[in-house]
């Protein structure tokens, strides 16, 4: 009976040791995975920043003004103010 208990103890210890080894190997692999995720996060953050930068530059009024000029848009030279009564130019029958 005593011998059996010793074997059982050795077996349990062996299982715990093996589990520990597998666990450590597993954790070690997670370290690499975490590193990969961190790199991925950096790359995605970079991309987001890049898109934000593009939006920022595209919404620049200076740039929009230049583009508008290229497309032939101009600022009104003479603004004509129409009095209230003259606002209606045609009436339907």
């Amino acid at each position, binding site marked *: 009976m005593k011998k059996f208990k010793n074997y059982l103890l050795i077996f349990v210890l062996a299982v715990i040791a093996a589990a520990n080894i597998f666990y*450590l190997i597993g*954790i*070690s692999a*997670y*370290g*690499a995975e*975490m*590193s990969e995720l961190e790199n991925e996060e*950096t790359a995605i*953050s*970079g991309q987001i*920043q*890049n898109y*934000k*930068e593009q939006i*920022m*530059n595209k*919404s*620049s*009024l*200076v*740039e929009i*003004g230049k583009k508008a000029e290229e497309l032939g848009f101009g*600022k*009104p030279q003479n*603004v004509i*103010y129409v009095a209230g009564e003259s606002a209606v130019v045609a009436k339907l029958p």
Partner: protein
Amino acid sequence: MLKLFIWQVVTGGNLAKEAKNQYRSGKVISAPRGNIYAADGSILAGRKEAWLLYASVPDFKEGPPEIAKKISPILEADYEILKDTLAVKGAVWIPVTHKISSEVKNNIEALDIAGLGFEPEEDRAYPEASAAAQLLGFVGKNAEGEDTGYFGLEGYYNLPLSGRRGYSSTDKDAKGNPILLGDFQEVSALGGVDLMTNIDKTVQLILEKRLKEGIEKYGAKGGSSMVADPTTGAILAMASYPSFDPAQYREYNDSLFKNPAISDTFEPGSVFKVVVMSAALDAGAVEPETICDICTGPFRVDKYSIATWNNKYHPDSTMTEVIVNSDNVGMIFVGQKLGADKLYDYLKKFGFGDSTGIDLQGEAVPALRPKSSWNIVDLATASFGQGVAITGAQLIRAVSAIANGGKLPRLEVVKGKPKLEQIISPQTAAKMTAMMVEAAKNGEAKWTNTRGFSVAGKTGTAQIPIAGHYDTQNTMASFIGFSPANNPKFIMLITLNTPQSSPWASETAAPLWYSIAKDLFPYFNIQPEN
């Protein structure tokens, strides 16, 4: 056994430290700098992706001269300096160039040079280029090499914009991967706060463009302009010329960084008359119909004879006519009626001698001479705007009080709760506004007045003090006005330094004011009166 004893006991401590240095890795987590937004939510100053190019010397497969030869044209850097940087004795990890663009990074990566690597950094971008440069300021480096804001908003709000850097330290294995069961510490970075400003980009760009055109047209050395909402003190636009590009600040002279609208002091000249007249009206010293009984000719004060700007005199002028004619003698009459003590107290009430509260770095606060030191000549000259140094920001704030029913606003670039203080009665403000409307319609700048629109304004041609006397040739020309006079949507100040086409504000600053106002009327939906 002996060797084991030495490793374990004698050198154990040092070896443990060395081992820790090998597997322990720490890094600073940078805090993203806050953005600066215009009132419409678009970005005036934002973050831009940039990279640190570093060299890991043990990984080199070529010598520093070869590497320097390959990358110096891409970096536009000096070959010799770059070669020496890469060949520093004993160095293992060398930061080569900070804040390179993604394009440059991609070009270097394409060369596939072993031992060169990149770390992400952050750079500042100003999408509107040099627009509002002096208002925004720029981000440079401090003595420790850290990003720091200088001038304008970047300087004033540097601390909140910067945020707080973090730090992380972790154990790493031989491949550089983190050991999850190892020691891990992290202090998170706290990003800088974003600033939402009152700046209206459309108004800002109109102001920039027109001011530059005006300075060129009138041959001025420079100029500055401001547009504000007089009811709240919100700064809608602020421009000065010459200017600089904040993204390329290193390429410009330091003198361009300061904002003339808040940093330069000048003797205001006739624009100041509206402040003195408001004080006299509020104190009950005069009424708009009060007759000036000394306006018949030049007036002698102590040993000085004071004349009008055009040597024309208007006997028995009313106070309204004194403002319309910009009559220096008439203003001496007003000053004498008011008295030096009361004038001083009102100037303090209007904010002269104190900060405007504007949230920009670099505001000058010229002091008023102590009350006890004012003599009759000081009183006389101050009445028409000479011998008193002010800033453009102080002037626009003071006249905002007239436009705003007597309530003096605190000037604010970043959106906040308006702070107003009643300094003159609404009745006084209304009387003064009516006088300014008359001045705009019938004063010396009447030829440039945009007919039909309700404008209250005043010109000012000031002599420039130099080394104890006044420059006989050059002037500082300014025009301040608001529209519509009785329910103002904007107040604008134009100041031109030494215009060459004419020394008079009525022929330079005033037409420039109206040319800008013509663009602003439709934008602010201001209709003609008739």
